[in-house]
């Protein structure tokens, strides 16, 4: 059961990371994790460490790039940035996601059986 949950997490995590980077521009791993947690209204309580394999995967696929830089309070941190391919991928995945959720939603809505 726990495994299923994490599968969903891995799949959607990539989308959330891409969306976060689109909204906030270049950001470090901590910032991304923090932002995802806040956006979810603290309902996604996941270890921050799990974000890093996902970042590596996205970077290998060429959707994001990384670069060491200085944070606001002068700390060295690795910043991730969306590439053009990443922007496209985000649009595609967002579309897919909306489609999936709307289909699933229709199945789950109470009137689905009786509505014409």
């Amino acid at each position, binding site marked *: 059961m726990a495994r299923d949950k994490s599968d969903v997490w891995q799949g959607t995590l990539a989308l959330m990371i891409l969306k976060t980077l689109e909204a906030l521009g270049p950001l470090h791993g901590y910032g991304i994790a923090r932002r995802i947690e806040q956006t979810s209204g603290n309902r996604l309580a996941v270890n921050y460490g799990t974000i890093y394999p996902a970042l590596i995967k996205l970077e290998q*696929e060429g959707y994001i790039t990384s670069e060491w830089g200085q944070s606001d309070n002068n700390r060295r941190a690795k910043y991730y940035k969306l590439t053009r391919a990443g922007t496209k991928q985000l649009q595609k995945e967002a579309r897919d996601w909306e489609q999936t959720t709307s289909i699933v939603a229709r199945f789950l809505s109470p009137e689905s059986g009786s509505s014409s």
Partner: protein
Amino acid sequence: MRKLRAFLLRLAGLMVGPRRDHELVEEFESHLELHIEDNVRTGMSPTEARRQALLKFGGVEAAKQSCRDRRGLPFLETLAQDIRFALRMLRKNPGFVSVAALTLALGIGASTAVFSLVNAVLLKPLPYPNSEQIVFPWRQSPPGLNLGYNDFPWGRNEFLFFAQESKTFEALGAFRSDSFNLTGSGDPARLDGLRASAGFFPALGVSPLLGRTFTEDEDQPGHEHSVVLGYQLWRDRFSGDPAILGRTLELNGDAYTVLGVMPRGFVFPRAQEMPGSFTFAREVQLWIPLALSRGPLIPAESSELAVVGRLKSGITVAQGQAEMDVLGQRLQAQFPRAKGWFISRVTPMARQLAGDTRRPLLLILGAVGIVLLIACSNVAGLLLTRSLGRKREFTLRAALGADKWRLIRQLLTESLLLAACGGLLGVVLAAAAIHFVKILGPSNIPRLGETALDFRVLAFALGVSLVAGVFFGLAPAITATQENLIGSLKEGGPRSGESHATTKLRNALLVSEVALAFILVIAAGLLAQTFFHLLSVDPGFNPSRVLTFELSLPASKYTNQEQIVALYQGALQQLRALPDVESAGITETLPMGGATEGTALRIPGHPVTDPNDRPYSNYTMASPGYLAAVGTPLLRGRDFLESDTADSMPVTIVNSAMAKKYWSGEDPIGKQVGPLSQLYPAATIIGIVADTKRLSLREEPPPEMYVPYTQKVWPSLLTMDVVLRTKADPVSAAAAARGAIRSVDPDLPLANIATLETLVDGSVTQQRFAVVVLGAFGALALLLASIGMYGVISYSTMQRTQEIGIRMALGAQRGNVLTMVLGHGSRLAGLGIAIGLAAALAMGHTMASFLYGVRPTDPLTLAGVSLLLLAVALIACYIPARRAMRTDPVIALRYE
């Protein structure tokens, strides 16, 4: 694309591991710092802030590991780890590794070398385009009539009928051997030529290097004075001059225009690749149009044609055969008298060219497979022994979380690594073996020169190594990991705690090794006996001190039989006058020099009762003195004399097989016999000679009649073999013989100068090769099996040290210990021998066709090999038995 890119990056990630790891740590540190700072800002104490940040991050090591897995390829990393570990293990056991790798190298090397031979002879595509479409439709002898060989030539009539009527062939060509004397440009030379019809080159699909081959127009009687040269002839004789095209050569006294030059290596057909019933040259030097006349059949015409066809694309060999069957039936309906002579067998080219080598090669391949199996069993036994010593290691790994598959995987990595070492060494051995086979192997194995370590052979070696690695690694790995591992972790666990399964597996391996070695040694023994039987068999002639060569008279100069006979008589007179020559004679075909003529017989007073079983015999022309020169004993009657001439009574000499077959219980001398054709007179039998083996030493000589070349005989007398029995070394007589021939006709070249011994030797080279190879494999199998036996017995003796100590302390004598250990070994060996014996008896049928003069169930061989194996087994057991005998009970009891 993205996936591929990710995969390549991950692959690259394997290389730069440590640097990336460092970066990852740095990133995590920066992450934690940022988090702590935030936490402090919300009012936590620095310690609490750090604790919360670490908690929120989750396991740092786990995150690192999953990043590492994501970055690299975990499968490959485990593999690399396994290989590193395996290398370390192997390095620590140099003795074990060298024995195992060497054993494998012998097995893999031998099988790779044999495969390279099989590859060159049987598997490699032939150097003809779409060679699978090229076939040889041979005429078959009528069913029930055993003439010693199966494939026969077609006549002109049949070939023309096939060429006109067949629909499945794209091209159909006929060809026959012919020789030509080249004069007018330098020294006279006798050249081996081929007369081929216009369809010959298109059927083979070869194009000339220069110029063109002949067309239908040049394949007409009267227009055939054109020639296509072989590469070798063009280069050696005409120094590779491209301006040769269009020049005229004088062949047999006639002018021939050079049309083209064939590419290097095209010498088709080679004698060794054609059926034994044909006499082709070793290699063809030039091609001349066959120019068959379309008119009615001339009865005396010698039209012994071989036929080659190219099937239309999409037509299978079976379809070609079906059509030939139908055409044969039509011919049969037209010529009902020649009953059964229109059956054909369509042979694909690859099979034709491999010829008689196919089956011996497959036998050798089987033998080498057995050697490989023994080698693998041996290494499996070694690994099994070693894995017992590593029980604690496996237990520890299992306790630390390695599951069974992980352990098996690691053990397999080790054995594959071992196999790779063996394979590498094996390829080196194979290269050396190929080198030697090329130098020492029989020259009549077709395409032997093409044997090489090419891509396909290397792939085979790799495949064999992999399969062998899994084969000998899997059983020990599974057995080793299946045992109850907890027991062996206990420090005081009994050392001899070997499970039943392991002992059984080890014994089974040993027994099968002995059985396999037994089969191989039996096969080698039977073949060796066959070989020696062949060498000691009486061939019906005496090959020592005999020089032979061929004379080929140009038809333009020698136009009638009187001239020809005068030439030969003169030549024989000159030759007999030489001081070194004891006797001299000529014949149309030498023993071991190919097939002689054959004829259906007419025996006055013996009416043919069964038309399907007409009397038949070989038909050989000879001169007076030939029988003495070749050493065929005259059993009764007289030899031909100079007084047997065209004008005197026709005479013949028959061999004893013929005398027995057709005049059993009668005296053949004075009886009449003749060829079925009324063109030739029946001759009076004047003598009986011993049977002569003509095609191979294994043959049962068929009936044969000899006729004097001076009387009315066929075929043409233009090409004859001269036989000289010399007083001393036959080779040194060659120069004098050349001089003697020059004195009767200075333009006449001597061809195919050889000693009769060389010819006989040539007929057994393949046999010798098979014996040497199988003997070597048998010896190798014995060696490997005895090493395996030694290993198993010494290990089990070591395991029983304590037990032996107790026995000795209780009063057992050293002799008892020796008997016990030897008994253990001989029980296993005995079981192996029994199984091998059963297998050898079961396979006897397959072996029988390779044997001569010995039955596959030869009791002496079976008993001898059984004793040999038992002796080898006992010797292998003796060393560990002696060691056990010397066991000091006190030390043995303290051993654990």
